[in-house]
């Protein structure tokens, strides 16, 4: 037998009868003081990338960039093209067959920015609400 209507009626009666519960009288004051206390605290930023990873990245940059510039390309093109050519030489030394161009570099940067924006957005949203 379908008892949906009876159940609906009963719960309507139960919840209609029930008053709201109230917190302690000083609740609002405590909330406001909690907010002002947290405002006074200095904000501690936690880096998304751990310190060790940062050190490794910096070391790689320190050793890798001078190495790239030490490679002879012999061109008077712009700085970015020059850098891409040097990366191409370095990659070809590893026998990887990729044709490097500034457009490919820009595309790689765009992909990285998009991925990081997505990750950052997700991280921020998870911290909210």
């Amino acid at each position: 037998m379908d008892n949906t209507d009876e159940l609906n009626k009963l719960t309507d009666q139960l919840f209609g009868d029930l008053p709201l519960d109230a917190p302690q009288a000083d609740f609002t004051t405590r909330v406001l003081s909690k907010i002002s206390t947290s405002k006074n605290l200095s904000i501690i930023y936690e880096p998304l990338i751990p310190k060790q990873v940062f050190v490794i990245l910096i070391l790689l940059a320190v050793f890798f960039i001078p190495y790239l510039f030490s490679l002879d390309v012999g061109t008077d093109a712009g700085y970015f093209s020059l850098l891409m050519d040097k990366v191409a030489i370095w990659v070809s030394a590893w026998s990887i067959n990729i044709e490097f161009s500034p457009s490919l570099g820009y595309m790689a940067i765009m992909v990285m920015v998009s991925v990081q924006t997505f990750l950052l957005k997700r991280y921020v949203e998870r911290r909210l609400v």
Partner: protein
Amino acid sequence: MEQSFDQPDIAKIVNGNSREFSKLVDTYKDLVFTIALRMMKNRDEADEVAQDTFVKVYRNLKLFKGDSKLSTWIYRIAYNTCLDRLKKNKKEQYSTPIDEIRGAEVAVIGNALDALVKEERQVLIKKSIEKLTPSDAALLTLFYFEEKSLQELEPILKLGANAIKVRLFRARGRLATILKGELELEIL
């Protein structure tokens, strides 16, 4: 259960007007505390969760776009804060099995409740809600806070209308079963 009140000025709160924010807290504190108490089953914890909810409301109010009612947005934060706390405390979600409760039995429960004095009835109902799982208690409470609007419940619970309907039916059944047990104890 909806309260009548002056809506607080959100723009003023975002600009740091604490008097306006205290108006908001005063307006919604009972509703938020009731949700927290029914989910946490403990006044101290409910108090903490309700405070955390308002701190989050204050911090995120500038992100409130107004695409839902302010109350719905606040309930959503309260509900999620409770769930986070329950997860942190690893509280057990004890659940009463749904015995098939017949329409006639439901009517008997209703009549038995009517025969009780108002205060006794309220104590008994509160005791029964306390025995529900936090999710069942939240679902039923929010359903009545939101004036039975499934549309308002969807963003809070992150569930579709049909899923909410099914869960509501089961939660009502469990509440009736618990209430029947409590009434039997009361009569004995």
